[in-house]
């Protein structure tokens, strides 16, 4: 069993629309995609944003692109037009998702 953070095996990008955030998580290697599907769950992503009072978290699987797409409602505490956060767009938050611990059997 190897422990690592998600950043070791995947890259990610954030985008905002109003108060809704999407984060894509993309495996560098096809053989790591099943680890993403198994361990990078909507529940774990939701827990990362818990302090922000997030709403629904949806996860979409894109096996041909070896990617997951997360859509997180109410993640931006008002979004770019209302947030008090320095990063009202949530552009940095892809790297928060990349801090998730991952175990490789």
């Amino acid at each position, binding site marked *: 069993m190897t422990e690592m953070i998600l950043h070791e095996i995947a890259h990610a990008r954030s985008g905002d629309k*109003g108060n809704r955030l999407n984060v*894509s998580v993309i495996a560098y290697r096809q053989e790591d995609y099943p680890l993403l599907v198994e361990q990078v769950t909507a529940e774990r992503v939701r827990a990362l944003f818990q*302090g922000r009072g997030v709403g629904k978290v949806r996860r979409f699987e894109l096996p041909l692109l070896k990617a997951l*797409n997360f*859509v997180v409602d109410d993640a931006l505490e008002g979004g770019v037009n*209302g947030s008090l*956060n*320095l990063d009202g767009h949530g552009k940095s938050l892809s790297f928060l998702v990349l801090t998730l611990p991952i175990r490789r059997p």
Partner: protein
Amino acid sequence: MHIGCGAGFSGDRTDASAPVVEALAASGCPSYLVFETLAERTLALAQLERRRDPSAGFTPYLADFLRPILRRCIESRIRIVANFGAANPMAAGRRALAVAEELGLSGLKVAVVEGDDLLDAHGIEAVRRWPNDEDAELAGRDVIAANAYLGALPIATALGQGADIVITGRCTDSALALGPLMHEFGWAPPEWNRLAAGTLAGHLIECSGQITGGYFADPGKKDVVDLDRLGFPIVEATRDGEIVVTKPPGTGGLVSEATLTEQILYKLHDPAAYLTPDVTMDITGVRLRMEASDRVHVEGVQGRPPPPTYKVTVSLDGGYLAEGEISYAGPNALARAELAADVLVKRVKGLGINRPVRCDIIGAVSVFDDDRGLRRRGGSFAPGGDYRVRLSGSSDDRVTAERIAREVVALYPTGPAGGAGVRTAVTGRVRTVSSYVPAELVRPRVSILGAAGRGA
């Protein structure tokens, strides 16, 4: 045919389009250059400018974007499509003609696409009555702007009328590329898969350098060469809807399966249903294949009919954001920063302001934190170091916002030891909500300016 991107947002580099234009000119294919400079809230700010000055309200950098490449584009028959119009497409069209004349280029045809401005078309009472996604009550509120995201058809129409330059206001970002493809290849409903391919082509290049290594580089993990002279993207499309993404030779950056995947999913929600007025795009079947260095082939995008509604961004006055920052460094800096944050929160509450205020300690945790600072409270950080306290708050009026920001300035003589480098800012804000209106309420129109020296 080839479509190059000249800019992906209003503050984009103005020197990146020249290598794109050279590559387009050398291709020998029908070529277009597109500029996307209209973020969600940019239009509301432009509308406020237009209220002050009826000849203003379009992108302030229009001339900076056009001057470096316009002559070469006209000489090489590269046509330009740009959403420079913002709140005043007609004024932007006139400005584009004036720039051409300054460069000694006469006889240009500039097409202006209007009809996105629904506040102008239907009036404030109608806009207030439309349901919105946040269930915001708009009765009695000042509506600054209400603009529909137009599709690609008016752009294709304008090109069909022989325009050298097409200027739009609000339209979908992808329409800037789909319009030329519809014009050049005759794509039209019900060729949904082709319209989806054109939409994807536009979506891929709409954020300029974000598909060529920008917003991507992560040293040691995702290395990108010469980010300082990043090449902007070019998409090559065939009549059958095949797409290749590349960038100009000799420029910095990277085009790879990884850069494309990040950009395909950028701001995309349900991958099976990306909604535009032209087509509903489904990218779940998309496959990417590296053809050569900095060349990626895209296939498998599918389309379905579009929704019967247009998305409308409604902009309202959003009050003011107050911000102030102060630094503490060296031994015990974290404790001094925490003390400063505590003082600031007490002082703002003492002003009788009942809105949330937020304090971050930059260097400990800031952008990852929430408004209550739970990550900072639960975290553990070095007691000495180089920390910067950031206070932010909001107000409906500017005077109160300035009062909040001044509390940070006042820390110089009244706060913890060694407080340094205060900066404050008060910024006007715009609040936006989205409405979805029946398509028949949106009537795009195309006007042609110029063409003095040529037949129409």
